[in-house]
């Protein structure tokens, strides 16, 4: 009964609830952090870059008198490369029809025998550096029947036998055999005259089909900076052990090479031109970089849970000016946490709760050392002025007002001097919050009069020290970036600050202050 009651009380206690809040908010923030990094491509490095590739296919041909039809294979976003943008440049009389895998450009029979130029431009960005594994549910089509003469059959059998001596799996064995230099005599008779990649790939495909291994050609583009090419790059995919595996047709290397974009699997060609002659296709590749941050919007479209973690409704979709001011705002919870820690856990006494924060903001505007010098001069001169004023026995409100006006005049003089003598220190005076400065002077003066100069200076010094600590937090561009990019951690800070509101332990300064009360071992007098 008693134990039950105390458990119930514990659950009801504010501290317990706040702990739960801290834990839940932390779990949420941690997941959000993970989500932003994985799906939005955010990074803890503000300068993280993502490669953006531009692939351009230039198709040129001379029209015959037949209707023109150009069909271009169109890659789909895969796990590695996502399409950022796609566009087609074609003469006005072309009609463009996009399907999932191809783009078809059609035009009526064209009388003019001018050269036709079509451009297909594709922008891809590197979504992840890890290589994806083929789709497990991608089952092969039934094998085509090969029509072979007896002689061809014999050769193929011989080649298959020869291949068995080579290392690797059966696909790799064939690849190694075909690419051997100098070529084996039996093989040479079998090789096509021009050993283009396409011909070699077709040959390999026939051999594999002969061995009853499902296979298909993969056309795509190996992305390299400033690449120009008249043909697509070709790989071969074979279906073994219930999985499609990609092979390099010259080295036999397994797996998709880095930076390879697949345009087409198992098709006939990337680009078909009907109704044209002398067609020429030229591919070019360009590499550029963009900050990962700027690509987040694109990535978010592909993300799961994008209704909950909506990029459209996030702060990152705001106009840049608003984002920049939020960048400052988002770091303040951390600064506030520092102040709470310094006051309630360390036990430093400052003038006013958030005065240090306002001073540190001013320091950011002025720069660190110019700001400190300026602060010192304004406070110093202000104190002198306040000391003179106290002789006049003015009423409180007019007196503070006089100090405010005096501080304003002081700043004016500083700014003018700063301009004339080109001293940046002096002109930075403008950024100090006047009211805060006047208040520090007034409060400090009263402390000075009532509790002595030592206490007044101590108070100002502590305020300044706390301000400097806060300054180093807020002024750090990296911390600001983190607080902005992963702003969900501010929720954790909120709960931590509330939890600190129930902290009843000793402050660090109290460990010194109350040291005489420490239980000593009994001593005999």
């Amino acid at each position, binding site marked *: 009964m008693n134990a039950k009651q105390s458990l119930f009380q514990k659950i009801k206690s504010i501290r317990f609830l706040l702990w739960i809040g801290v834990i839940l908010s932390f779990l949420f923030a941690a997941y959000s952090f993970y989500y932003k990094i994985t799906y939005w491509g955010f990074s803890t490095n503000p300068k993280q870059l993502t490669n953006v590739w531009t692939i351009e296919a230039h198709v040129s041909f001379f029209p015959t008198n037949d209707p023109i039809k150009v069909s271009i294979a169109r890659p789909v976003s895969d796990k590695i490369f996502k399409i950022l943008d796609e566009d087609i440049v074609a003469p006005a009389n072309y009609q463009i029809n996009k399907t999932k895998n191809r783009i078809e450009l059609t035009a009526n029979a064209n009388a003019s025998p001018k050269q036709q130029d079509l451009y297909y431009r594709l922008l891809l960005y590197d979504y992840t550096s890890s290589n994806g594994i083929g789709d497990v549910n991608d089952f092969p089509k039934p094998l085509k029947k090969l029509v072979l003469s007896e002689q061809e059959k014999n050769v193929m059998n011989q080649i298959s036998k020869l291949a068995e001596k080579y290392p690797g799996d059966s696909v790799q064995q064939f690849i190694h055999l075909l690419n051997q230099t100098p070529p084996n005599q039996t093989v040479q008779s079998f090789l096509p005259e021009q050993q283009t990649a396409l011909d070699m790939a077709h040959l390999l495909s026939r051999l594999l089909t002969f061995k009853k291994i499902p296979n298909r050609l993969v056309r795509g583009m190996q992305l390299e900076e400033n690449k120009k090419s008249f043909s697509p790059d070709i790989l071969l995919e074979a279906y073994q052990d219930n999985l499609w595996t990609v092979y390099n047709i010259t080295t036999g290397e397994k797996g998709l090479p880095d930076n390879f974009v697949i345009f087409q699997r198992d098709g006939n060609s990337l680009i078909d031109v009907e109704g044209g002659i002398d067609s020429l296709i030229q591919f070019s590749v360009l590499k550029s970089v963009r900050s990962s941050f700027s690509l987040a919007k694109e990535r978010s479209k592909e993300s799961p849970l994008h209704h909950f973690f909506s990029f459209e409704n996030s702060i990152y979709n705001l106009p840049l000016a608003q984002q920049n001011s939020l960048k400052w705002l988002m770091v303040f919870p951390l600064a506030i946490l520092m102040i709470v820690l310094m006051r309630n856990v360390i036990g430093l006494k400052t003038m006013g709760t958030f005065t240090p924060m306002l001073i540190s903001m001013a320091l950011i505007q002025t720069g660190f050392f110019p700001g400190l010098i300026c602060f010192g001069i304004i406070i110093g001169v202000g104190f002198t002025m306040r000391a003179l004023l106290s002789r006049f026995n003015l009423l*409180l409100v007019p007196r503070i007002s006089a100090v405010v006006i005096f501080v304003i005049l002081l700043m004016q003089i500083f700014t003018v001097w700063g301009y004339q003598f080109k001293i940046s220190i002096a002109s930075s005076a403008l950024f100090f919050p006047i009211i805060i400065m006047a208040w520090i002077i007034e409060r400090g003066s009263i402390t000075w009069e009532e509790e002595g100069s030592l206490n007044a200076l101590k108070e100002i010094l502590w305020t300044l020290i706390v301000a400097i600590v806060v300054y180093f937090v807020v002024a750090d561009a990296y911390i600001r970036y983190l607080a902005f990019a992963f702003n969900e951690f501010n929720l954790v800070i909120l709960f931590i600050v509330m939890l600190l*509101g129930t902290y*009843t332990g000793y402050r660090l300064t*109290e460990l010194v202050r*109350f040291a005489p*009360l420490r239980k000593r071992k009994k001593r005999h007098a």
Partner: protein
Amino acid sequence: MLKKFNRFFAWPSELRAAGVMSMNYRNYQIIGKNNKRNLYPLVDDKAKTKLLARRFGINTPQLIGIIETQHAVKDFLNIVHSHSDFVIKPAQGSGGKGVLVIQEYTPDRFITASQKVLSYQEVYQHISNILSGLYSLGGKYDSALLEEVVHFSTRFKSYSFQGIPDVRVIVYRGYPVLAMMRLATKESGGRANLHQGAVGVGLDIQTGRAIAAVQHDKPVFYHPDTHADLMEIQVPFWREHLKIAMQGFEMSGLGYLGADIVLDQERGPMMLELNARPGLAIQIANNCGLRKKLKKIEKEFPSDLDIESRLNLVLKSYS
């Protein structure tokens, strides 16, 4: 080296073992849970406290008059004309700020307790400053109290530099917990504030006899200015002191309070003011932690007794 370090630093576990109360604990656990916010004005405004005290039959310094508006300031001489000395106090001041004791005066010469000579204009200015909120919490508009001067028992003359020593008693849920006498020094400018350099003398709660003394949180044994032996202090009328402090609980309803009491030569112990957030230095002056004492009261002392029974309980039970 380590020994020296240990003299200036205590681990949290050591302080906890000594039952020392921290500022955070006081604010959250004690004040936050025992003192209702709406009761604060009763003790923050000395005019209200005085009125309430009178209703409860508690002895306080006699009020001569209150000045509430700037245009009434010029009348202050008329208000005090029948008194040869008087005190000017901000109603909502704290820590003795803005208190001016005029020992003797002519219409244009005022001599303070610290033998400073002020002009009429300066005293006028002082009252005016009080009204505009210079000494009040948060700088809000205030009123100025004109009170009779407490004629402090000459018995303690040698223990105090200029100012009047007072006795601070911490009362928790109606039971006195710790007590100390605060003695003004030259450094504190005649004020009885510990953080300004006044001496705090811990008093035995049952007898009113000195236990230990501190200045600036460090143990002392002699008054720094008069060199009187602080350990010989014994507060007379101790039972009456305790009773006034305990009545502070009845009249204010504050579960945790500090009562400031002065001893008048003719009228005996008088309540000066109550404090809803009494400081923690009293622990050092008594060389004793507050937390364990408060715990003991929570556990062992009944909450439904009248003052006499509580007083008897306290005088019997502590040892």
